[in-house]
């Protein structure tokens, strides 16, 4: 039990004393998750809207594929992205292996199905009277799309939070594609894995608590935002 209590103490010390290595991991985590979340939201929300709103041939099949991708193992994504970005891979020339953008590509693949599936569900559960109401009030097609999207904003926010949770806590992609390079591609989760391997449980717990604190801060902000809009 002692190492857990020590972990709490160390977490506070690491944050308060501005431990450079810890902050490097925090910044790497925040940067890489910001990249991946931005891309996955920009692509995933419109695709999720289309999937939930429109009725087109093959829609159910696409939905099954997207739902299946929700359970993609992070190590498998890491493996595939590694294969593509390695020198022998088709995208080897891009030089993205063992870089934060490289990790972001993997995390985008992880987050995209989550954003798409949950956005599509939010849109599917949208009150069917909304469309009638909006058209009755005089919207054009573009306004219909934007207003409908705005009405399901809480559902989309929930999709974003869920995806963010997966991205923040994954370790397989960061480890395989990033290589866990100190000061460079070491994220919070890969740092925790490393410290635990070294037997430094307290340090691992401390980093885990910091990760939890970041997640808490993000959720708190979103909760505040939800009340405002």
């Amino acid at each position, binding site marked *: 039990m002692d190492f857990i209590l020590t972990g709490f103490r160390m977490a506070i010390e690491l944050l308060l004393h501005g431990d450079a290595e810890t902050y490097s991991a925090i910044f790497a985590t925040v940067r890489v998750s910001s990249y991946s979340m931005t891309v996955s939201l920009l692509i995933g929300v419109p695709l999720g809207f289309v999937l939930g709103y429109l009725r087109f041939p093959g829609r159910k099949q696409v939905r099954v594929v997207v739902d299946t991708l929700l359970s993609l193992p992070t190590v498998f994504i890491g493996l595939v992205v590694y294969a593509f970005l390695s020198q022998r891979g088709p995208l080897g020339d891009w030089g993205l292996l063992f870089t934060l953008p490289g990790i972001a590509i993997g995390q985008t693949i992880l987050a995209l199905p989550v954003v798409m599936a949950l956005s599509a569900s939010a849109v599917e559960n949208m009150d069917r009277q909304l469309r009638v109401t909006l058209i009755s*009030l005089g919207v054009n097609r573009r306004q219909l799309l934007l207003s409908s999207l705005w009405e399901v904003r809480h559902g989309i926010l929930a999709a974003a939070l869920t995806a963010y949770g997966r991205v923040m806590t994954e370790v397989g992609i960061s480890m395989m594609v990033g290589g866990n390079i100190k000061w460079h591609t070491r994220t919070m989760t890969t740092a925790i894995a490393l410290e635990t391997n070294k037997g430094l449980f307290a340090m691992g717990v401390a980093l885990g608590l910091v990760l939890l604190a970041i997640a808490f801060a993000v959720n708190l902000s979103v909760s505040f935002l939800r009340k405002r809009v």
Partner: protein
Amino acid sequence: MTVKDAVYQVNEVAHHYAVEPVLRVEALAIPQAAIVGLIGPNGSGKSTLLRLLGFVEKPSRGEILFKGRPAAPFSKAVRFKVTLLSQEPYLMRRSVLKNIAYGLGLRGSRDNLRLRVAEALSWLGLPYEVFADRQWSELSGGEAQRVALAARLVLRPEVLLLDEPTASVDAISVERIKAAALKARDEWGTTLLIASHDWQWLYEVCDEVLQLFNGQLVGPGRMNIVLGPWQARPDGYWQKVLASGQEIVTTAPPVADAVAVVDSDKIAVVDAIDSGRDGKNMLKGTISRLVLEKGSRNIVATILVDTMPFAVMVPPKRVESLNLCPGREIDIYFSPNSVKWIHQGDNTHPNKSGS
């Protein structure tokens, strides 16, 4: 009425969901600034017709002309002129003020916004200072319905389509909604189409009441509908026996489960058994209500025969001479030959398929 005079001209319109046909209207014209009522049982196609006339959906077949020109959902000719209040109105997840101002914003009409919202709310008996900042989730069912109507009235539409506007709201809301809807016609010349089960209200306010059954217009709202099945009689007629043992006698139906339509003009109220008639369709019933019809100034008596309501047109003098009043037992009569037919799945207009 010429096409030019009509705000709507419906030509050979049919609509279906998946493969299920839900509406077929061969021809219908709605005059400008008229109040037209739609009545009919649940599933008769009232809401579908209103959605088509509101240009929320495009008919599967046929065309709807708006002021003589073909129109479709999102077309400029109708977008800012026609508005529909559906049976379960949806309030957007925002305040009452923003809900009502939404349509004005779409039209780029933001002058005196708060004043106009306050005025629209006042028509529905909702004080601005109490309701403007309330969230959509903080309203009762009746208040939400009134706010939804205010959001339409503030637009001063040329056509206002109301789908069961007084269903599931309290008595105060009903009165406010009725008064506000009529105000639109009286002050701005708005054409009103109202689907409602409230016959009394429709007869009182409408210039014309149309009846729908099984996705078809069966004529003016005074048509009486009698569901099958029908049984053949030895004398060549067919009959439906009511729980009390009374028999409704008709000519041969096209199919055994056909629906009989009897015009209220063809039903007579009699004060005693009339030996001059053949004795068929002398039915004993109880008057449940008397309503003055706006257009003809005749009185529409609703007479319950067992549990089946018959609407009967009665001139005011006859009401007086027979001392008709709700609760009184009375006999009605109609000839079996006056029955017209429609049957499930058939789109034949009853006026074209005589007995």
